[in-house]
């Protein structure tokens, strides 16, 4: 079932991303103020959406479910690890595409603005999570440590979201999810923007399914190696 879903999800996600690129680069009109630069809106916000609201939210929820004794399962640990790794890739893409957009519109590649700084901090914290996963430890000890680290890092997600409201920033406020819930763009541009969110979310889900299978297979191999090592010790006559 999962394999069928993954086989279906992959081509659909890739096709939708390709359609988003075609519409974004060749079909949608240029903006009256930004000209062609507005075409970055069809990738940058969708990358940020996946990184912050899908990947890291998923990592936070899965970590919470792992720490909760009634729902504790290694499945949640593996899902959180998969979401974080892909989330870090998407966060780096968000920062770089934002920087490329910032240079011609703001005149600088980088500024210590609240939105940019909190997003960079989020990337660094989740890189720390990935480093923590590589520290050799019993799988359950590692899962507990990582779940706590993910929850601490996830505190930054609402800070990133509200940073443009709480502080004066160069970064613009929300265009679609603003306080009045009234999108300030319309027509083909709005539909292409919506498509980008759907396409990149499906791409993320596909990557999570693949990454999850890798994590499961690797853990099975670690267990087999441990069983072999214990068996070798027993045969040597040493207490295991």
């Amino acid at each position: 079932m999962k394999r069928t879903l993954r086989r279906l999800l992959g081509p659909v996600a890739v096709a939708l991303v390709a359609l988003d690129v075609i519409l974004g680069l060749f079909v949608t009109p240029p903006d009256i103020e930004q000209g062609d630069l507005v075409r970055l809106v069809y990738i940058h916000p969708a990358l940020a959406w996946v990184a912050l609201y899908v990947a890291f939210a998923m990592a936070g929820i899965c970590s919470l479910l792992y720490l909760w004794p009634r729902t504790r399962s290694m499945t949640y640990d593996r899902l959180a690890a998969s979401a974080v790794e892909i989330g870090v890739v998407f966060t780096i893409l968000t920062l770089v595409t934002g920087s490329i957009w910032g240079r011609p519109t703001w005149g600088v590649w980088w500024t210590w603005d609240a939105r940019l700084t909190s997003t960079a901090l989020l990337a660094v914290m989740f890189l720390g999570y990935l480093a923590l996963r590589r520290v050799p430890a019993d799988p359950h000890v590692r899962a507990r440590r990582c779940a706590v680290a993910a929850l601490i890092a996830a505190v930054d997600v609402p800070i990133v979201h509200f940073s443009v409201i709480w502080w004066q920033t160069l970064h613009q406020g929300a265009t679609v999810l603003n306080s009045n819930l009234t999108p300030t763009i319309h027509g083909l541009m709005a539909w292409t923007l919506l498509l980008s969110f759907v396409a990149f979310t499906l791409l993320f889900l596909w990557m999570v399914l693949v990454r999850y299978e890798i994590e499961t297979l690797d853990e099975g191999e670690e267990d087999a190696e441990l069983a072999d090592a214990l068996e070798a010790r027993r045969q040597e006559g040493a207490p295991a």
Partner: protein
Amino acid sequence: MNYVIAGYTFTFVVLISYGASLAYRLRRARRRARGAK
């Protein structure tokens, strides 16, 4: 337009490279799992 091309190129080079890395790691993990049985 150069900035737009730079943004799209960087994004898709990274995504395709990461996708290829996932495919390689999945193949290797499956091969190892088959070998361990």
